Structure formats: structure tokens, C-alpha cells
């Protein structure tokens, strides 16, 4: 029987101020505090960031690939959401 592993955390790093935190990977840790210590060693050995979020993987709600159609297809036939959908005479400026 394999040993019980520590819980899984998903790790997000902000490369520098002004940018959003970005998912970089995951790791096992006993708690959030240790997850941050370990993420420092695992994902920022070369100055990759200045801020870390560690999120318990079980806390993340995930969309299913099976729902891809119902979730995302409605956006596909709505060209009127894009500026290029509208014809404006070329002598109208600044638009």
C-alpha cells in the first residue's frame, strides 16, 4: 500500500507587479504555509516571481470538456460582439 501523500496545491505566481498571477503547476504540501515555502523552492529558483498563491486543488471548481459545447458555442455565432461587424463609412474618423 502506498503511503498517504500530502494534499495537492495548485500554484500561481506573479512574475512582477503589474501582471496577474499565472498558474505554473502543482505540488503536494501539508498546509498552505508549507505550500508557499515549497513553491518558492520549486517554481522560483531563478527569480520567476515576487508573489505566490497556493490554492488547495480540491477547492477549484472545474468545467468539464463534455460541457464545452453548451458553455462556449453560444459565443461563436455572435459576430456583433466584435467591432469589425459594423460597416462605418471610411470618411468617419476616430472610430
Amino acid at each position, binding site marked *: *500500500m*502506498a*503511503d*498517504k*501523500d*500530502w494534499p*495537492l496545491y495548485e500554484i500561481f505566481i506573479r512574475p512582477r507587479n503589474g501582471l496577474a498571477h499565472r498558474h505554473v*503547476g*502543482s*505540488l*503536494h504540501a*501539508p*498546509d498552505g504555509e*508549507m505550500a508557499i515555502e515549497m513553491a518558492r*523552492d*520549486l517554481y522560483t*529558483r*531563478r527569480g520567476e516571481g515576487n508573489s505566490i498563491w497556493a490554492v488547495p486543488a480540491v477547492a477549484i471548481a*472545474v468545467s*468539464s*470538456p463534455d460541457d464545452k459545447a453548451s458553455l462556449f458555442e453560444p459565443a461563436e455565432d455572435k459576430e456583433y460582439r466584435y467591432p469589425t461587424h459594423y460597416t462605418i463609412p471610411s470618411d468617419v474618423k476616430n472610430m
Partner: protein
Amino acid sequence: MYTQGLDGKIGPVREAETAEEKEREARFQARIDAEERIEPNDWMPEGYRRTLIRQISQHAHSEIVGMLPEGNWVTRAPTLRRKAILLAKIQDEAGHGLYLYSACETLGVERAELVEQLLAGKAKYSSIFNYPTLTWADVGMIGWLVDGAAIMNQVPLQRCSYGPYARAMVRICKEESFHQRQGYEIVMTLAQGTPEQRRMAQESLDRWWWPALMMFGPPDSDSVHTAQSMKWKIKRVTNDELRQKFVDVTVPQAERLGLRIPDPQLRWNPERGHYDFGPVPWDEFWRVIAGEGPCNRERLEQRRRAHEEGRWVREAALAHAEKRRLRDRAA
């Protein structure tokens, strides 16, 4: 590195039977052919999943076991600078192992289970780490040849069809470049040193050359999985192609150092535009794979001991986290 495609058994895989199943597999293959990436929750054929689990876990184990031959020299590194570099490199290898276990877990297998398989001697890792590091030159040789071979193998894996594996490879390749360069620098320092240091470098190259060529796995003619793995774009380049490429780039690097590659049949073939090289001693390769290499037993014993000796730390950390959680809730 380290994906030699060794263990032929991925267990029985049920073939697609019904029209619906065949249709689903065809759709999957069409996505692969269109260079789409497959992500963790997407449907995938069982054979694809198992092939990836086998390959990624072998790769992860190799990174972890690969720390041992280098760890052997940490306390005896010739200077403080070399020691700091070696520690940083070994820390990278641990990181690579962890990125890869994470990628493997996205396929629905737990890391603890994979580690268990390694410690039980049921999982494979790269044959190269069953050779001893007898001299300091070996640390340089590992960086130059072993990490060089690993890069050759891993660069095409950055385009592997499975997203999490490809992403782990991108990170790993970035870090691996320092490993190879520091290794070449060590060998160069020895090659330009005293006659004794030169001899040490040459002796080390003599021992590592053939095992390094074996890292790319058996010849294509004996490689059971190559065709299917290429079709699934888990693998992009065959073992023999990678091996040839490695020889072609490494020979001039050895010449630059004034070291001799231990292969009497090695010569440039202008018609092919490649180096011809002698037969790889495959008997030795299969012996090492079967557990009869110089260090197989020692490596596993070391891993088992480290795992057992770390057990109380893992348990204590978990108990501490649990205690704090309860205390926070009570407050």
C-alpha cells in the same frame, strides 16, 4: 531525459470495438493530426493514457535517481564555486522530478503510487544512473554528455501532444542548458590542466561514452513503441535519429577539448553528412536494464533509505497542519 521506452508492458488495453468507440478514437487521432494539444480531462484512448503514465513516470524517476551519482560528489567538490553549482544542479533535478510527477498525476495516477512502484523495484528509470561516479571528471561528464543527451531528447518533447508533459518539458529544457554548460566547463578545465587531470578527463569519457549513447533507448528496429508513440505525437523523433544527432554535435565538442572518443569506427561520412559510429554494446544495455548494472541495487537502496528516514518528517508535518487546523477552528 530519460525516456528510453523500456518497459514493454503497459498491460492489456481493450481495443475499440463498437462503431461508436472507433469513431471516438478516430476523432481523437484527428485532433492529434491537427496538432491540437490534449489536456487532462479530455477523452483519450486507454493506451495513450498508459503510455504517457509509463513514459512520464520513468522520466520522473530518472530525475530523482539521477541526483544520487552527483550527490556523491557534493562534499568533495574541488572549490566552493563548484560545490554551489553542483548543489543548484541537484536541486534542479529534484524540481524536474516534481514537475514530472505533477504532470503524471493529471492522468489520474497518484504520486505516492508511482514512488511506491519505484521503491518496490517495479518501475524503470534511465540506465545511465546505474553507473558510478568514480572521479570528479565524472561530474563534468554527466553534465556534458548525460545532460546533453537529455536535452537532445527533451527538446522535441516540448511539442508532445499531451499539454501538461509538454509544459513541464519547456521549463526543464530552460534549466537543463546550464547543466550541460557547467559540465563542459568542468571537463574543459581538466582537459587544459595537468597531464594527470587530462588523463582523468579521458578516462572518464572512455567510461561514459557508450552508456550516454544508450540513453536514447534501443535501436528503432527493437523499439516496440516507437510507431504508435509517433502516431500519437508523444514522441516526435526516433531513438536512432536522436542518437545520430547527439554523435554529430558531440564529436566536435570532444575535438575542441583534445579528448578522444573511444570508438575506433567513428569517422565522418561525407555522403551521409553524418558521423558513422561503431556498434553500441546493446548486451550491456539490456543487462543494466535487467538490474545487473554496476549500481542498480545501491541506487534503489539509497532511495528506500531516504524514503524511510523521511517518513517521520512527512507524518509530523501533516499532524502539525491538522493540529493547527483544529486549533484555528476552535478559536
